[in-house]
């Protein structure tokens, strides 16, 4: 039976992180790709099970840091060399050792802000609506003590009856259909 229009996916609820990890690993091995896991706290093993350990936050952070460094260093150079070429203790106007500290501070500031906002952007924040919140047990448990695996209807393997039976074999507390 193909997915009904208006079905986001099937949500399986587990009692322990270990059950979730095993379920996610099996689903991924069986070829599922449109899937996601939800837990009250980060579980690295789940990310590994779904093979999504790579993300672009480090790259965003690096680029942000380098941009911050370049911005401050060139700003200082512009101020000291072009805008206000003052004679300070007979030093050359382009006295780079004095520029390092603010440039370094800006590297850290920009890297930090890029990491925070880059993470949000990559997580598609802020998201005002997500169909999963239509499932009452998700609302109750996902931030407290339950662990969820969602197989989405967009996956070509998805079949309302077949997938439900498949999820039931993993020993969940419940499997519910999530409407849009």
């Amino acid at each position, binding site marked *: 039976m193909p997915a009904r229009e208006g079905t986001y996916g099937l949500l399986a609820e587990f009692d*322990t*992180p*270990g059950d979730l*990890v*095993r379920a996610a*690993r099996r689903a991924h091995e069986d070829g599922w790709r449109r899937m996601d896991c939800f837990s009250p706290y980060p*579980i*690295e*093993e789940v990310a*590994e*099970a779904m093979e999504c350990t790579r993300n672009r936050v*480090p790259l965003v952070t*690096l680029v942000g840091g380098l941009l911050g460094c370049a911005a401050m260093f060139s700003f200082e150079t512009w101020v000291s060399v072009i805008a206000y070429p003052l004679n300070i*203790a007979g*030093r050359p106007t382009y006295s780079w*050792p*004095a520029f*390092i*500290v603010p440039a370094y501070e800006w590297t850290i500031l920009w890297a930090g802000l890029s990491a925070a906002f880059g993470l949000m952007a990559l997580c598609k924040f802020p998201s005002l609506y997500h169909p999963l919140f239509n499932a009452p047990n998700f609302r109750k448990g996902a931030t407290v003590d339950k662990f969820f695996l969602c197989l989405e209807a967009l996956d070509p393997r998805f079949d309302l009856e077949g997938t439900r039976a498949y999820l039931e074999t993993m020993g969940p507390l419940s499997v519910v259909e999530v409407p849009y």
Partner: protein
Amino acid sequence: MAHGFQKTLPADLGAPPFVEVWKKRAYMVCGVFLVIAAILAILDYAAGQNPWDHVLRAWLLGVMVTFGFSVGGLALLMVQYCSGGKWGLLLRRPLEAMSRTLPLVFLYWIVIALAMPKLYMWANHGLVDRAFRLGQITSWQVEAIDHAINFKRPMLNPTMFVAVSGMCFAIWWLYMWKLNSWAMQREADSPQSTPYWIRKFENWSGPGIVVYSVTMTAAAIYWVMSLDPTWFSTVYGLLFLVGQGYAVLALSIITAISLSKGEPFKTILRQTEQHDLGKLTFAFVMLNIYLAFGQFLIIWSGNLPEEINWYLDRIRGHWGIIITLDFIFHWVIPFTLLLSRDIKRNKKRLTRVCQFMIFAVAFNQFWLIEPNFKDAARNLHFSWGILEYAAVPTAMIAFWVAYFCLQLRRRPLVQVNDPHLKEILEPEHAHA
């Protein structure tokens, strides 16, 4: 849930037999480089130089590096007794083995004490006279040096040099002896007494770290900074201290990863702790450049004639090339490589980075030591002698490594009587 999947320790906790192979290889490297050092000395002599000059300077570099491994190992041991953490449990025995090489470092140091008149201007005014006669320094500089030597006479004289260094060695010896013998007593004691031992180690290590910082500062000032009696910097001891942390962590990582090719480290070295050690090393890379650049920025800003010459001696006359390379070796390369999570988690690559870092520490010492001598200040030039800086310390470090391997073989590599041992035997992933 998964806590039943504990790994078990192998029956034999001693160092694996291939440590003997390392020892043999270290002896061979030592022998080869001793021959190279001798050839270089002959070439230097044939070129009309006094070969002892550079041999002794290079010897001082070797002393500083091996001393860093030994006393730095002792310091890191004390730090981990205070801070705790699984990385500490992993490294406890290797760090103890490093600290037990102190007698060898002391023997190395005796050569410096005997060669004082060849190295230190305050011990032998003939060095100043010779430099002036050869036109390496001006009469104004002679005046400045004489003023500094006379002013610092109560501190910089041969008796004080030997007395202070001897006292420092005695203090390190006491800590080395206490921490090493208690570790064995603790192992033999019942598990119920563990809290008593943890407290005892903490109470000795906490003050020990302070004592170490003070004695380290004294040693760095006497052995290296006083090569140029006119200069002073309050952060100097701390710079050496951080350099020791940098080198010891690199050496510890190399040791742990190399040992993990066999039991028992194969069982207890997990990627998590390797990653943690990589991060800690990264912190030291940062701290090192922070202090080094801080010292430079302050002296550059002040631009005082008493201080700035120390840097000018090390920048002008082609020394700029060396300091640029030093910056790249000592900071840029380790920093950029250790940023990567993948490299920190990869045994082979992390080992390569750490080996390079130890080279960088020695290279930095070269930049610190050689320009103190007036024939080389602001005048980086080739002589056969300058190559001794590569040959002599390599031979000394190789011999040190052989001694270190001997110490590694002396004891089981894993501390069994520790409540945290269970955690280190857990599989990498706590779930599933």
